[in-house]
């Protein structure tokens, strides 16, 4: 993926819709077509869009679980090591490994690790932060709904996958786009 070149190259063709219901129906049609790479854009999450786009369930809950487990265990190990091994000191007549007293800190560590790891993983999966990435159209974050059919990346083009800008634009119009335009990528797409 040589997207770092200065010459803007065709990223795809984007079509605009003014309401989420139209966008949903159009996305289903693209999903069932031969186009492989496409994405919908909306000012707020449109319900049913994941299914319309054929997206799999996000794997993020697994990250949360693993990080939570790690956080809780580290929280316990920190308390065990400091209270039992490194500085064994009887406090309030309790045993050195007074684990019930360690529960609040373990709980907070679980939440802290789980929350931060989930957000970190979400950023990673979404390719954020990436300040070079701007909206394809400033109206998308306001009230427009858009559907982008992406041009194949360089590797696929070598394998003979062809992308016809005109045909794609026609296709978008045929499924209800009010306006269609080509978008070019610069820098990190």
């Amino acid at each position, binding site marked *: 993926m040589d997207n770092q070149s200065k010459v803007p190259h065709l990223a795809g063709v984007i079509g605009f819709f003014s309401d989420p219901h139209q966008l949903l129906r159009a996305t289903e049609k693209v999903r069932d077509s031969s186009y492989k790479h496409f994405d919908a854009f909306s000012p707020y999450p449109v319900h049913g869009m994941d299914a319309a786009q054929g997206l799999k369930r996000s794997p993020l809950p697994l990250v949360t679980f693993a990080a939570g487990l790690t956080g809780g265990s580290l929280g316990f190990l920190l308390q065990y090591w400091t209270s039992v091994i490194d500085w064994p000191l009887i*406090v309030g007549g309790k045993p050195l490994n007074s684990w019930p007293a360690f529960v609040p800190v373990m709980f907070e560590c679980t939440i802290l690790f789980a929350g931060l790891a989930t957000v970190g993983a979400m950023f990673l999966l979404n390719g954020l932060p990436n300040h070079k990435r*701007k909206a394809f159209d400033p109206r998308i974050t306001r009230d427009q709904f858009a559907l982008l059919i992406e041009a194949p990346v360089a590797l696929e083009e070598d394998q003979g996958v062809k992308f016809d800008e005109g045909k794609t634009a026609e296709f978008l119009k045929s499924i209800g786009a009010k306006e269609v335009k080509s978008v070019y990528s*610069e820098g990190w797409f």
Partner: protein
Amino acid sequence: MSTSTEVTTFKSEVLVTGGKSFSDVNNDISAPLERFPAKTWWACFSIAIAAFGLGAALAADMFMNGLGVLGLNQPNGWGIFIVNFVFWVGIGHAGTLISAVLFLFRQKWRTAINRSAEAMTIFAVMTALLFPVIHTGRPWYAAIWLLPYPNQRHLWVNFRSPLLWDVFAVGTYFTISLTFWFVGLIPDLASIRDRAKNPIRKIIYTLLSVGWRGSNKNWSHYETTYMILAGLSTPLVLSVHSVVSFDFATSNLPGWHTTIFPPYFVAGAIFSGFAMVVTLLVIAREVFNLKDYITLNHLEKMNKIIMATGMIVGYAYSCEFFIAWYSGNPFERFAFINRAFGPYWWAYWIMVSCNVFIPQVFWLRKARRSIPVMFVVSLFVNIGMWFERFVIVVTSLHRDFVPSNWKYYVPTWYDWGITLGSFGWFFIWFLLFCRVLPVIAMAEVKGVMNLEEGDGSHGPVPLKEVPAHG
């Protein structure tokens, strides 16, 4: 008996009034960010700065002369500073309740208020954190000695102390609340970036919005994250005030040593927090002209929660008395009789009047929907909840087991001045927030507007060629 096929239809509630379109949402909510602040804002900001300045000057003087300038004495080792700490942490809880718990219960009306309530949470926790630190008198040590880090003294913090649990609980709470708030802000920051005309504003919001462009592949992960954070914040918020209550409940002092403290503190925190949200929103919707987004229906729902949690708190007050009598422990009985009829009887009855009696006006629909009534009630609840913490801290400490040890506690003007400074600090942040970030979650409001098909944008702006971006 009716045999006809009657069909009851439920019309989904209108959450945004005034026939707003999606682009109106952006225009209305971004407006305060894009114009020069009005004179009233500058006036409020100057007052906040002055209040904070007074508090900071008094605190600096206190650091130089020692804690003797405060009203603390033997046996009252905790005073107004700890009252303020608990008060401000409690204020924060409503924000998390609105953003996380109401989200999990799918209460769509929360979208009007969650952004400002979460902002309030963050600023309230920032205010709360000042107090335990300055209360040590040597804040430059306290700030690091609270943390477990390998040091030259070969010492570790005491993990069996609830004061240390507090460090972890409040620290985690602040971090996760800030993260949750920022995640919620990303789509709105992108909206502001896309409508920015001023190049400096464009650069700032481009950096803040981390490259968001509304892609559904991103929304998919984003929504999962949002749900998970709500799920994590819910037990977190319950744990935070429970841990704060452990600071008292794990001691042996009558009046503190009770098992009801964790749920009682959490209910009180939600109660005071909602009151603070009402206080702030009644002003904000007026000043920023957001009456179509923060409607009377929203405020009425908040008032119902205030009344409900107020009665939970009232139940806790009476339950404490019952247990004090039922336990048969003479020290416990004395502590509670002394609380209501001893030297601090006035504080106790201010607390009961403000928290239990006054919110009862919300049984009347007219009162729930009246802006002046709810504003006054919310102020009384704030005062009442401050006094609740005063009653817990001071009336329990000032007369413990040995009468020779008893002493009346009178805060000095250092205590009051630094308290006033904390309000200044809180309002400095809140006023800045109102100027630089959208006070309502625009993307979330659009999601609950329930527009009919083909209604996506009332009077759409004509589509025209816009230069493509990469």
